[in-house]
């Protein structure tokens, strides 16, 4: 499993968050708070705003009302470098090899070659390391895009339907990854319709978002 040294402590507080996207009010009045070792599972019907909330937390969408506060011990660090965001899109380049894809993200995100090799192993892709990514199945592509989380240690994981295209073994693998991350002191906020079977490592809160306003 991953041998993370303890991740830096973080605290997230969201107060009365509202957000406008494509001429619609996609979020309003959302409040939550999470600290190191805690996970938030976002539930709700399609269009409820789960993706929008994650994008807002990731800094892609501007805040139209309310506030998001991140408390960290390092004020000089760019807040964006604390976060891994894995959404619906895989960010995988089909014409490059599996390993090249991961190595690129490792270098770009401050990871190491060593972590790339161990990530491939954990994701079950080491046998495909030198194959072109276009040869992977949908489930394997999803594993590759999630492996990005493992090549550069960062405290905050924002995941949008991480188990999409995965079978039940893949679901278990995602749960184990999230578990290990929480044990190392990270925060996970994930939109998922599945009941992730996590060990009771830290708090897991479920937040259900309503229908579109």
């Amino acid at each position, binding site marked *: 499993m991953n041998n993370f040294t303890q991740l830096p402590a973080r605290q997230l507080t969201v107060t009365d968050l509202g957000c406008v996207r494509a*001429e619609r009010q996609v979020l309003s009045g959302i409040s939550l708070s999470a600290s190191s070792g805690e996970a938030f599972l976002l539930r709700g019907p399609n269009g409820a705003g789960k993706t929008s909330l994650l994008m807002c937390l990731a800094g892609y969408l*501007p*805040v*139209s009302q*309310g506030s998001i506060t*991140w408390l*960290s011990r390092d004020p000089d660090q760019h807040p964006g470098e604390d976060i891994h965001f894995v959404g619906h899109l895989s960010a995988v380049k089909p014409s490059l090899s599996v390993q090249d894809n991961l190595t690129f993200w490792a270098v770009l995100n401050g990871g190491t070659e060593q972590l790339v090799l161990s990530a491939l192993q954990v994701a079950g892709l080491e046998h495909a390391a030198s194959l072109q990514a276009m040869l992977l199945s949908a489930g394997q592509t999803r594993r590759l895009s999630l492996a990005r989380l493992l090549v550069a240690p960062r405290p905050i994981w924002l995941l949008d339907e991480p188990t999409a295209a995965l079978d039940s073994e893949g679901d278990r693998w995602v749960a184990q990854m999230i578990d290990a991350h929480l044990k190392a002191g990270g925060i996970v906020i994930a939109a998922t319709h599945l009941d992730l079977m996590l060990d009771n490592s830290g708090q897991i809160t479920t937040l259900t978002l309503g229908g*579109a306003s």
Partner: protein
Amino acid sequence: MSIETAKPMNWFDKLAHPGQFLIWSRYLVLPLALVSTTLFVIGLWYAFFNSPEDYQMGDTVRIMYVHVPNAWLSQFVYVAMAVSAIGTLVWRHPLADVSMKAAAALGAAFTAMALFTGALWGRPTWGTYWEWDGRMTSTLVLFLMYLGLVILWRSFDDQLRAAKLVAVLTLVGAINIPVIKFSVDWWNTLHQPASVLRAGGPAMPPSILIPLIVMTFAFTFLFLTLHMVAMRTEILRRRVRALERKRAVEGIVK
């Protein structure tokens, strides 16, 4: 620690809120239209009946009283658009979006008028409808920029997102305009040894200057009137869209 918060609304925001704008702008449209009409009447009277003929061009010089204001407006409207673009990007002002969009089509129209009247004027003056001189060429490039902006507006379904990207293009264009003018003038001096006849010569007597200024004001007020009407129309159009969208969502729920 990093905090992201929404900014609170101040008096300016409240006044410039689209809903508020619709209310107080209604009372401005008619006065602006009246001022424009009056200025046009005065200006045209001066232009036709109270200003001298040009010693070389005769009566055709009177086209200048339409051409010059339009040419000036084509640049003024771009400045107005650039200011609105800054409003969109820096202050995320909802009215700035609308102002920019309204100005784009109007600016294109005024620039087209400038080119058209320039061609009409050119025929008796130069013998051809089009001459690649510095000013006309710059105006042509400006016209292409306006059209590009109009096309960009129409390419997006989401007009809010369009506004931000059009604002970027508008500002990039604004920075480029001096470069384009300079390069076109430079190019023109390379290829055209003869100088182009300028209207009225280096010094303009008051008999020509006054109608020119009146007509310039007339066209400017025309722009302000049309701009205000266009902004109101755009705000109403967006409201209709929002209502239609709401109706569609409710339809699914029911």
